[in-house]
């Protein structure tokens, strides 16, 4: 779902990281991923949501982050798209 939502631009990397905050990432990502994120940011000179998701792929997000966080991201995107109101 995360990968599909990004692929179809239902939500953007920024939307993902608005839920998967640094606190959440730091608390749940394994050290290997954290080091990769930091190393990639140092190498490129910036840490953007797109670059973070290039390292922490949706699959890894789904693997390490709490699912309620990811679901909140999806639900918020659906709400912005008006899907939830139509369903109600």
């Amino acid at each position: 779902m995360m990968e599909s939502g990004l692929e179809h631009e239902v939500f953007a990397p920024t939307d993902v990281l608005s839920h998967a905050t640094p606190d959440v990432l730091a608390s749940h990502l394994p050290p290997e991923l954290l080091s990769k994120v930091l190393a990639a940011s140092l190498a490129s000179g910036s840490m953007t949501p797109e670059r973070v998701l290039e390292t922490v792929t949706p699959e890894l997000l789904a693997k390490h982050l709490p699912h309620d966080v990811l679901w909140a991201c999806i639900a918020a995107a659906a709400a912005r798209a008006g899907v939830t109101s139509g369903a109600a």
Partner: protein
Amino acid sequence: MNVKGFFVTALSQALDLSIASPDDVLRHVTPELLANYLPRPLWARLLTACMGASKVDAQLVVETIGVPNLCEHIPSQVIWACLKEIAQRTLGREVTHEPLVALPPPLVSRPTAAIPLSMTPPPAERAKTPAPGVPVAVGPSIPPPGSAQGLADVVAALESDERPSASGRSRSPTQQRFRQSNTGIGRLAATNTRRPQATATPTVSEPPPPPAARQVRRGSTEADAYDIETEVGKDDWKNALAVEDEQLVDWSGTDETVTSSETHDGYGRKR
């Protein structure tokens, strides 16, 4: 022993003084080490800072985490390796500028200390090399007689050795050195015409005269001046005041000059 406190101070000072750069720190404190040893709240702070920063570099990482936190959580061996590299590099620069460095040996014994230590032994070896050079002139005359000739030959050889020793008057140049220095001192000797005796002694005799001359000069002039002041001030003080008022008004209008002129007037009156 507070090693971490020492590390904090050393690394902070190194960064503040631009002896080290944040890149030097992250060369040792790699993202992997940070991920393994840094507490997650600090990681959250770091990620937040990186996300909000326009540029992510080592300086941002070090400043966000903080040197105290780095030294607190990262293994001491890693911090020490970082400090060691910084010290080696810094001391290496100093060695290039200044060949004689007394501090490197105790601080850094492995790389930089090898250079100064290698520098100190050579002088002793150099002293050995010239020494054999002198006896070489003496040596060749000794072995030939010792081989088969009699004592007379040995004596003759020794006598012949004395001649080369006369050729060893090369030592006389050292005497010339002293003479040259004496010529330099000869100025004072020329001034001290009192003692034509020894050209070499003036160096010893020089120190005493100057203090004596100084004492005589200073003591005489100063003592005379003070004596004159006190005596004159006591003698014609009131009469002098009557003359001063008129002259002071004519010379200067300011009070400061009057105060300063009082002394001058005293000297002028005395004279």
